[in-house]
């Protein structure tokens, strides 16, 4: 399953060229390493703030504030995902080939209208997904103010784009034999969808929604930087106050929130896995247990959502009256202005140049993170550290075994830490050493995505059936890893890495506003200076980037994301 050799060469060559181009074209700021003196200065700076940073402010007011902001963050994320799912559902139906066309003949009436609907829904999903949640927040906050509702809506819009695309694809990817019986009894397209595709894809969908929820919590914890409320607003306030003990408090709260959701979502996803071929299969459950679990699940979700609404009631309650009094004529003109781009050749050329930065950030951070996470996955893998006896027959003394557990837990903990701190927060920390500019931004994305990839890589590695590893059991563990497990895990790793690339390019846009420059920075400048047509060009460029990467991954015939 490593693909045709030709494709491997193309892909490998393409990646190398992209890396070299990025290294060459990006405006690095490396003045920290210009001389021994400037390096000394950098360590001085770190030393000065580390003292404060290592003593987080844990007094009652600081902790209460952090707890309040953390609750805001979780509520914003949960409601954002819920709203996003509501919005994604109809759009996903409209963008699913199976639901819109089914197996009707190509000359069936209304074909043109239907393909319009299909393309329209897909474009809308691309727009929702292509514009990062930070940018949505910048746009929405003009009219909703700086509060949790802004964060919630921004996350809902971007989550809708991602969920809508994946849901539609998952429905289209259900193997037709599995619902052939339904179709043969004369069920229409909608019936086939409701009783066939949808239930068959439900488990994978739920797993993906859980993953997005976890991401949404991470994003919600920084969206306050641009007006979305929650921990991000507090973090930036403390940073601009120069209060590093409080910055540390905020980061601890962030870590606590993201790590908890991370572990919880993962445990739940583990329960959803019923593949009997899985080395650690839980087996199937009987119907009563299944129903009970479902009821408990629905109950917990409803309880969490109600609690979130209750917690954010003050800003939510105001939405109605605010909407009523807003002058919609102005908002209409503002929105129209942002939809109509300036297509002058000079502008387009500038946009293309500015797009190099997020693309370069995405390429370098993703390639480096893939290499780092790939190597670290070996140390984080249960299959290679704890259970090699299952396929090599090795017998380990208890102390060695304990040490290996330490290694596994340590590596996984490191991954949790790396991904638990959002990119924007990494930039703040790294800028003390590297100073403001592109370098800390690239490193921030690299560190964060290493954490993200490490988990999915280790998970894929542990999913490799042991019988594949038995064949070369005479070799040492690294050899088994390289020649036994890697070829099996690689297609999945590649898919995850490519998806992460798409995410990282969007983050590259976002980080433009905090020092990386490029697309995000220019978009914001033009928006602020009321050059709406040019801002629109930059906005469309973000969408086009996402579409281009998406189509590229389809061309490369990457495997669909398994959840």
């Amino acid at each position, binding site marked *: 399953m490593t693909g045709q050799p030709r494709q491997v060469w193309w892909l490998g060559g393409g990646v190398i060229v992209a890396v070299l181009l990025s290294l060459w074209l990006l*405006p690095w*700021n490396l*003045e920290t390493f210009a001389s021994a*003196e400037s390096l000394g*200065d950098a360590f*001085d*700076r770190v030393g*000065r*703030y580390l003292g404060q940073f290592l003593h987080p402010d844990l007094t009652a007011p600081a902790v209460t504030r952090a707890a309040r902001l953390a609750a805001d963050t979780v509520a914003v994320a949960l409601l954002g995902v819920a709203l996003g799912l509501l919005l994604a559902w109809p759009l996903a139906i409209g963008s699913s080939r199976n639901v819109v066309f089914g197996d009707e003949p190509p000359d069936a009436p209304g074909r043109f209208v239907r393909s319009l609907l299909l393309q329209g829904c897909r474009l809308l999903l691309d727009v929702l997904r292509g514009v990062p949640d930070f940018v949505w*927040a*910048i746009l929405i*906050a*003009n*009219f909703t*103010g*700086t509060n949790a509702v*802004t964060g919630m809506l921004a996350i809902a819009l971007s989550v809708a784009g991602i969920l809508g695309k994946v849901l539609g694809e998952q429905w289209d990817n259900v193997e037709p034999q599995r619902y052939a019986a339904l179709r043969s009894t004369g069920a229409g397209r909608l019936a086939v969808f409701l009783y066939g595709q949808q239930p068959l894809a439900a488990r994978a969908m739920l797993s993906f929604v859980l993953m997005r929820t976890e991401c949404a919590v991470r994003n919600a914890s920084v969206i306050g*930087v*641009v*007006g979305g409320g929650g921990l991000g*607003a507090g973090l*930036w*306030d403390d*940073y*601009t*106050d*120069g209060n590093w003990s409080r910055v540390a408090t905020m980061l601890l709260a962030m870590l606590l929130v993201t790590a908890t959701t991370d572990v919880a979502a993962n445990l739940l996803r583990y329960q959803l896995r019923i593949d009997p071929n899985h080395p650690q299969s839980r087996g199937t459950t009987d119907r009563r247990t299944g129903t009970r679990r479902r009821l408990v699940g629905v109950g917990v979700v409803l309880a969490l959502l109600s609690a979130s609404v209750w917690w954010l009631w003050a800003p939510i309650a105001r939405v109605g*009256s*605010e909407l*009523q*009094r*807003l*002058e*919609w*004529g*102005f*908002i209409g003109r*503002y929105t129209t202005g942002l939809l109509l781009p300036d297509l002058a050749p*000079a*502008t387009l050329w*500038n946009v293309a140049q500015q797009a190099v930065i997020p693309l370069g950030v995405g390429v370098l951070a993703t390639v480096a993170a893939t290499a780092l996470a790939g190597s670290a996955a070996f140390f984080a893998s249960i299959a290679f550290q704890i259970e090699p006896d299952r396929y090599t027959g090795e017998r380990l003394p208890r102390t060695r075994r304990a040490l290996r557990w330490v290694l596994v837990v340590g590596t996984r903990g490191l991954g949790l830490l790396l991904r638990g701190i959002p990119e924007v927060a990494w930039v703040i920390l790294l*800028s*003390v050493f590297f*100073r*403001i*500019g592109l370098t800390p931004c690239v490193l921030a994305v690299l560190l964060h995505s290493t954490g993200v990839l490490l988990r999915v890589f280790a998970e894929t590695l542990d999913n490799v059936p042991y019988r594949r590893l038995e064949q070369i059991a005479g070799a040492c563990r690294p050899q088994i890893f390289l020649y036994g497990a890697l070829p099996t895990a690689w297609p999945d790793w590649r898919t995850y890495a490519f998806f992460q690339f798409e995410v990282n390019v969007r983050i590259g846009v976002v980080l433009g*506003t*905090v*020092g990386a*420059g490029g697309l995000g*920075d220019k978009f*914001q*400048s*033009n*928006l*602020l*200076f*009321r*050059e709406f047509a*040019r801002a629109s060009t930059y906005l469309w460029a973000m969408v086009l980037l996402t579409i281009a990467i998406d189509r590229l991954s389809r061309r490369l015939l990457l495997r669909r994301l398994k959840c």
Partner: protein
Amino acid sequence: MIRSRRTFLYSLPCAFALAACGGGDSKAAGNPANTPAAAPTEIRISAIPDFNKGKLEETVGTVVAFLAKATGLKVVYEPSSDYSAAVNGLVANKLDLVWYGGLTTVDAQDAAGKDAELLACRDIDLKFKTYFIANQKAIADGKIKPITDLADLKAMAKTLKFTFGDKKSTSGHLMPRHFLVAAGINPDQDFAGGAAYRASGGHASTMQAVANGEVDLGALNFSYYDKAKPEEKAAAPIVFTTPEYVDYCWVGHQRLGAATLGKIKDAFLKLDPANADDKKVLDAWGAGKFVAADPKAWDSIRQVKNALPKGFLE
């Protein structure tokens, strides 16, 4: 003309909705949306986010109570997410009275037309300044020294990391850029790695970045700097002070009605430094006193904005 007709059209469904309510909701009925003729029941005030949120809430807090007393109306503070949001909020009927900087005052005039009324500004706003401040260590190392002419900066610029404040800040970006360009310096090319901006947190953020050495040099609001803590000032001394220009202003929207706008303006102008309560408000705003705003004074800012090379937007 089109605008007012639209306003009328949009107020129609609201009026029907209110009629249907039968006046049960007295709060909503007392303040129908977008109807300038009706007397307002509350004033929504805001300010450009030129400092971090905590500091801003502190300052605005002092004026909320004072305005409520002066007008007899409820005064609500609505934080603005960025400089531009404070302008859009005024036009979109989200905000009624906003504390703008020079550039945003001009934007509000352009976006809201005659509906935007310039009310009052501080004495210092008619002779505002920008400080260029440098990191103490960079000065000690001789990377930069205090200068009397910005043109002297050109020789040192190549090795200096420089940051403006918020992109829309008059004292943090527009005017310092204007003076740099006038001195023959292209901030986007001449400084090491080009000029940076502060994503949020305004002048406090610039001060922090210079003080902790993330950048060597920064441009910020002189009034914020003068009120900063001594240890921060010591870590980031002033190396250059720009010539004077016009900056901040209170701008109200006509929907508040001429009577209310008049009351607000009078209240600001009557603030007396000899009165202890008034002094608190003035001190919080860094003002000696408030003076009536003459809209023509901000034309100079409009000219600077229009004449400035816009390479940083391309």
